[in-house]
Each structure stands twice: as structure tokens, then as C-alpha cells.
């Protein structure tokens, strides 16, 4: 094995291991932070600061009965939770954690990310469909509608950045932010992208497909054991992914003062966004389903279109000032 292959394998292992280690840790982080914002303690008994609760949860999930309901479509039922994890993990391929620390330097990075996150919608639909349960199907339908409609302007909201840089490559995009983070010129894009990202990972307040109070648990109410665990891990990996993408696209990725290594800067920014995700969960109520769709199509969609239009116009004018 030559040197290049070794570094490549190490990068893959590092990214995969890091993501899979952080994802369960987020369960702990979320519970502690939610508790902090609700004036509670959260898990604080098992191990230092309750950190071992992650281990306990994982072990519990492994030893639970992995039940497949007799009325379910078995093959699809098993595949569905795998899809969400696979697609979310695949998207990490294009995230540059530091200069050169990237699994695959795609020149169509953002498109790949969009493709993968669209594939993630399959896991919800298939999971809800295969469960053969009306509440699961309702959740799946809501989830599908939500993900597809928010997908539309998620892509559009990133186009402002892509237009300014002129590249789909995330490394190029980060390098272009050396003078100014894109959150300043593309503020509208950032807001819409982040909202779409919340909807994409179906996190609160946009957790319409799950909606404990209305649909029990939506598409995964029939799942138990590690299959349920996979949906969970998929959700947390999705949160990390959206946080990473926001960092890359709008907050300068690894860029930061030199006293810390680039990876650390990246992780700090990523965790800030993850914490914001959790703050959203702590602070906001869930909107009604039709309000969600209305908000998406009637407010955010025109806003993103306007953003793309304005950005394109300004770039054209800068290139070739007519007057």
C-alpha cells in the first residue's frame, strides 16, 4: 500500500469513526442541554457527568427484542432504517474538516449532498409504508411532503453561495471565504438554508413526521431495538451533517485565527450549530402541518428565489458594469 492510499484509508476511518462516535454522544449532549435550559440536571448519575448514559442506552438498544410486526413488509422494513444512516454517512464524504482532510474531493460536492439528503426521504417513506400502520403511514406522508418541499429551496438557498464562488466544490467555497464569511453577503441564504436543514433532519420544531403527541412516533412507531436506534443515529448524524454544511457554506469552515488548528475551528463551529439545534428544540413549539407547508412554499421559497436572483444580478453587474 503506498502512502496516498494509507492516508486515504486513515481519513475515511477518521471521519467515519468520528461521526459514529459523536452521534451517540449527541444523545447525552442533547439531554444535558435540554435539562440545562429547563432548569433540570438531566442524566448525571452514570459515570462522570452522566456520560456513561450513552453506553447504557446503546447496550439497552442492543439487548431489546428486535421485533418485526407480522403485518409488516419484512424486507423493506429492515432496509428502511439502514437507508437513513447510509445516506447521512455518505454525505460526510464531501465535508472538508481541514485543508486536505476530506474523503473525496468532489467537484460536485454540494450536488452530491443534495442527492444524498433526498435519498434520506426514502427511509421515512419506506419505513412508514412497510410498518403497515395508519399512523406510521400518516407520518411518512407528512415526512415525505415536508422533506421534498423543503428540499426544493434548500438547494436554491445554497445557489447564492455557489454563484459567488462559481464552484460546487466545498473546499473552493471555504477558501473563497478567507476575507469574509458568506453569512454576511448571503444572510438570507443562510437563514433559509438553516430552516430547510431543520426541516430536512425533521428536528423540532419541524418534527411533523414524528409528532409524538399526534402520531405516537410517526414513521418509526413500529420499530424497536437497534432498528429504532438506527433511525435515532440517522437523525443525529443528520444534525451533524447540516451543522457541518452550514459551517462550510456560510461560516468559513476551518478558517479561523491561527492559534488553534483548523480541525478544531471546524468542530467548534459545528458544535455551536448543534447546540443551536437543541436550543430550537427547547424553545419552540411545533407548527401545524399546513402552517409548515405554507411557510415553506409561500415565504421561504420566494425568499430564496429572490436571493438567487439578486445575487446573480449583482454578480453580473460586478463583472460587466453597464453604467
Amino acid at each position, binding site marked *: 500500500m503506498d502512502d496516498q492510499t494509507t492516508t486515504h484509508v486513515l481519513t475515511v476511518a477518521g471521519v467515519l469513526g468520528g461521526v459514529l462516535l459523536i452521534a451517540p454522544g449527541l444523545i447525552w449532549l442533547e439531554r444535558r442541554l435540554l*435539562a*440545562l*435550559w429547563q*432548569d433540570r*440536571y438531566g442524566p448525571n448519575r452514570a459515570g462522570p457527568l452522566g456520560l456513561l448514559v450513552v453506553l447504557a442506552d446503546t447496550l439497552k438498544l442492543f439487548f431489546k427484542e428486535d421485533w418485526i410486526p407480522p403485518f409488516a413488509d419484512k424486507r423493506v422494513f429492515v432496509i428502511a432504517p439502514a437507508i437513513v444512516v447510509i445516506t447521512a454517512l455518505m454525505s460526510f464524504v464531501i465535508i472538508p474538516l481541514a485543508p486536505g482532510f476530506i474523503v473525496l474531493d468532489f467537484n460536485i460536492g454540494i450536488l452530491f449532498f443534495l442527492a444524498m439528503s433526498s435519498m434520506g426521504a426514502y427511509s421515512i417513506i419506506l419505513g412508514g409504508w412497510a410498518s403497515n400502520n395508519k399512523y406510521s403511514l400518516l407520518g411518512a406522508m407528512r415526512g415525505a411532503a415536508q422533506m421534498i418541499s423543503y428540499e426544493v429551496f434548500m438547494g436554491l438557498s445554497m445557489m447564492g453561495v455557489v454563484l459567488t464562488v462559481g464552484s460546487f466544490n466545498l473546499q473552493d467555497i471555504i477558501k473563497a471565504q478567507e476575507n469574509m464569511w458568506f453569512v454576511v453577503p448571503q444572510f438570507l441564504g443562510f437563514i433559509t438554508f438553516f430552516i430547510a436543514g431543520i426541516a430536512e433532519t425533521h428536528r423540532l420544531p419541524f418534527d411533523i413526521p414524528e409528532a409524538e403527541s399526534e402520531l405516537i412516533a410517526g414513521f418509526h412507531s413500529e420499530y424497536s431495538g437497534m432498528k429504532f436506534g438506527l433511525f435515532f443515529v440517522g437523525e443525529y448524524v443528520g444534525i451533524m451533517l447540516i451543522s457541518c454544511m452550514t459551517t462550510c457554506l456560510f461560516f468559513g469552515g476551518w478558517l479561523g485565527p491561527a492559534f488553534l488548528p483548523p480541525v478544531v475551528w471546524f468542530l467548534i463551529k459545528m458544535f455551536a450549530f448543534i447546540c443551536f439545534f437543541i436550543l430550537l428544540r*427547547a*424553545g419552540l413549539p411545533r407548527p401545524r402541518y399546513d402552517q409548515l407547508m405554507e411557510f415553506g412554499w409561500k415565504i421561504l421559497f420566494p425568499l430564496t428565489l429572490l436571493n438567487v436572483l439578486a445575487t446573480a444580478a449583482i454578480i453580473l453587474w460586478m463583472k460587466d458594469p453597464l453604467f
Partner: protein
Amino acid sequence: MFSIIRSLWLTFLHMFHKRETIQYPEEKAKLPARWRGRIVLTRDPDMGERCVGCYLCAAACPVDCISLQATEDENGRRYPEFFRINFSRCIFCGYCEEACPTYAIQLIPDFEMGEYNRQNLVYEKKDLLINSQGKYPGYNYYKVAGLAIGGKGKGEAENEEPPVDVKSLMP
């Protein structure tokens, strides 16, 4: 839109609030003095049992968790031969305490009665009886009752006048 940002900000500020949780096993909650917890049988100031075995507590108990058998000692004083409370049934309603005419049965602020074996929750008289007068210090039923028992005849109780001789004409 503004309200969303405001509520997020207010939630964020909760980071600096005091946490409400009481870390229970290390840190005990402060219980009010009238808290209805474990049931005890108290004694009178002379350290005699207050319970006279009248069965009113057993009759008042909505879950039938009290069982007892009354008996009499050589002085004619009634006391329970056995007194048994099944705490796995008890709902700590305090009706027995209300029903008790002699202030014998009382509920105290102690709720830490966890057991691994269910049978251990059946408390016998020796578990229930305490060497204290509980919430009513100085009260002695036989000192105020008109009943004649060994060592105390009719009319010798507190605030009691000697009985009227109905066969005499004298005032």
C-alpha cells in the same frame, strides 16, 4: 418572527437560572410537619399504649390494610393483641388518624419505606409502636375517660366530678 427569537433568547437565558431539581438521595426534600407518611402507634405520657382496640381505624380504612385484635389486661384496660398494617396496600390517606378516638394512630413525615421483599411491608405492632406521644403530648385517654379501670375508679378522672348517688335525697 420576533416572538420566536424572543422565546429562543428567553430559553437560552435559563442557562443561568438555578436548577430546580432536588438531588434526592443526597439531598432531602423538606417535608411539612403534617405530611402523611408512615403510620405509627403512639404512647401516652405514662408510656402506656394509647390504642384501645376500638377497630375504628380498621373500619375507616378505605383499602382495608389495618387489622387488629382487641384484648384486655388484668386492670380492665383495652389494648390490641396484635396490630398489623399492610403498607403495600396503604394509600396514606390519613382516615385512620382522623377516626382514632385516642390519638393513638398517627401519620408521620417519613416515606422511605422501600423494601425488596413485599412481605416486609407488613408491619406488626412492634414495628408500629414508638416510644413517643407524637403530635399530642400530654394526652392520656384513660385519665380523661369516665371508664373505671384498675387503679382508677368512677369519678376520679381529670375534670370529672364524683358520681351522684341516685338513691340519696341529699343534694
